[in-house]
């Protein structure tokens, strides 16, 4: 079977794809463990779809190697395809087929027997909430239902790895929530690799994220670890009713405060935005105790962790600055 590391579902080494002079992806290296939900994050044109197309064996890389479930994507592409469920971008489907017939057809293509394909089609229709429309033509379905048909197709052979390219593209907020929940549920049984340009989505669904920009990996880590890349663990917002000078000196003496920004708020309150160092633990209890001891009014005390969006902007800006420096 040629399996080097049984814990790894995807192992990418030096993957590069060129279209003429244009480099779509350059020297990608990352791995995905079995059972992980990993997000491939990046702006449009970052190389996400190209990476997924190569991993799903649809196209070959210019150089580099990748293994899926221990099989080489080029030399053992059929073995790889037996183990993946892939939903491409824009979710292309045969619109002239009925939902159940389409899923049975796909299950047969993926090597399932007649009875098994019927059973699996019914199971995935239940999982993806498609039972109401099972006799409808795919072309007559709404976008949300079509997306679910695409997901059901990716699941129908119960594959080890599910690859989803922009799975919530074009959906309304309720449908997006439903699809996200479905992806989260998939993570209990399958390894999932999803691509998205929506940072919030990756933050909500994935344990780990690979950030791509202009065909290069900027970062690859757990979402919580990535947030600490920015050098700050958290930002605290506190609205306190106190004399301004006393408040300023209190923050000066407060342990772990890296920076503070005080602005006037309504009703004699001051809005304090406090930045703490990466090593600081949650200081909210101490802030509450401090306000209580000084008999200050406290009406808001919230922690704001840096979002993945902050991390993404921070990383892409750093890359641009590095490139500018190199040019100079």
């Amino acid at each position, binding site marked *: 079977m040629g399996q080097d590391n049984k814990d790894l579902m995807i192992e990418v080494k030096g993957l590069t794809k060129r279209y003429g002079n244009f480099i779509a992806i350059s020297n990608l290296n990352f791995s995905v463990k079995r059972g992980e939900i990993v997000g491939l994050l990046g702006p449009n044109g970052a190389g996400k779809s190209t990476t997924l197309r190569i991993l799903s064996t649809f196209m070959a890389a210019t150089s580099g190697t990748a293994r899926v479930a221990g099989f080489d994507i080029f030399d053992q592409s059929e073995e790889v395809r037996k183990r*993946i469920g892939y939903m491409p971008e824009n979710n292309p489907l045969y619109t002239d087929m009925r939902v159940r017939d389409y899923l049975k057809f*796909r299950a047969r293509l993926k090597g399932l027997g007649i009875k098994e394909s019927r059973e699996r089609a019914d199971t995935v229709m239940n999982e993806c909430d498609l039972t109401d429309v099972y006799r409808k033509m795919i072309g007559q379905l709404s976008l949300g239902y079509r997306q679910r048909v695409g997901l059901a197709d990716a699941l129908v052979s119960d594959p080890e790895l599910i690859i989803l390219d922009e799975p919530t593209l074009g959906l309304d907020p309720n449908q997006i929530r439903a699809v996200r929940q479905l992806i989260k549920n998939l993570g209990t049984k399958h390894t999932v690799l999803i691509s998205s340009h929506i940072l919030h989505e990756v933050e909500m669904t994935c344990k780990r994220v690979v950030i791509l920009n202009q065909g290069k990996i900027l970062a690859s880590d757990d979402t919580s670890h990535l947030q600490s890349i920015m050098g700050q663990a958290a930002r605290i917002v506190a609205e306190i009713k106190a004399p301004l000078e006393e408040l300023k000196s209190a923050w000066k003496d407060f342990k772990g405060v890296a920076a503070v920004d005080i602005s006037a708020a309504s009703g004699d309150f001051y809005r304090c935005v406090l930045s703490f160092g990466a090593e600081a633990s949650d200081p909210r209890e101490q802030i509450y105790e401090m306000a209580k001891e000084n008999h200050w009014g406290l009406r808001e005390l919230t922690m704001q962790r840096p979002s993945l969006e902050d991390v993404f902007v921070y990383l892409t800006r750093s890359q641009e600055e590095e490139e500018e420096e190199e040019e100079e």
Partner: protein
Amino acid sequence: MQVFNTLLRRELGIYFGSLNGYVIVSTALLLVGVCFSDLVMRLNMEPTDMTLTEMFFSSWYFWLIMLLSAPLITMRSFASEKSSNTYETLMTTPVTDIQVLMSKFCGALSFHAIIWLPVMLSMLILRFYVNDAKVVNIPSVFTTYFAILLVGALYMAIGCFSSSITRSQIVAGMISFTLGMGIFMLSYKALYIMPDTGPMLQLLTKLSLADYMNDSSRAILDTRPLIFIGSLTFFFLFATYHILQWRRWR
């Protein structure tokens, strides 16, 4: 074999599950009907030593249907999959390029065979009423049908090839028609354009599809054109296979 059968059923489902298939069949049958009644009228008006099958396959109706129907049948095979991106979902399942190619080719050829089946049945019906072997010769009906399938296989292979090189069905249809017409025109170049006898005329005569159809309609089965048409069919299928393979290398 499971994958091939599943894909073949899907291909036939496209033809018979949509209006397109019925439009092609009914148009072909309309032309055949017009041709058939025309020939029967001619038989009533003047004596001839040709059988009905011979008359039919030497008429321009037959070649009109053949040249027009082949691009219409095959133009969507790969081009529509590529333009709708379903080709990506198809090729990321455990199917091989050869299974996809053969299912599309066999699906198109089966549809072609179904289009021409009523023509053969009408010959047999006429034979039942006329009861004269000089009008309709039964063995010639079968050899003709075999020749239709063989020439059809060549045209379907050309159609699949044309469809594999573009994402546009219209462009695929035009390429298929031009290539098919070009091969067909070789027959007439031999008959009309080059009156002198020489090696070129001999070569073109050997390549003449019209001559082959005429021979078959007289119940003559010659292996030479059979090998020629078979080789040409294989060539176009082989070229299509390599175009499908090329996708992985772009």
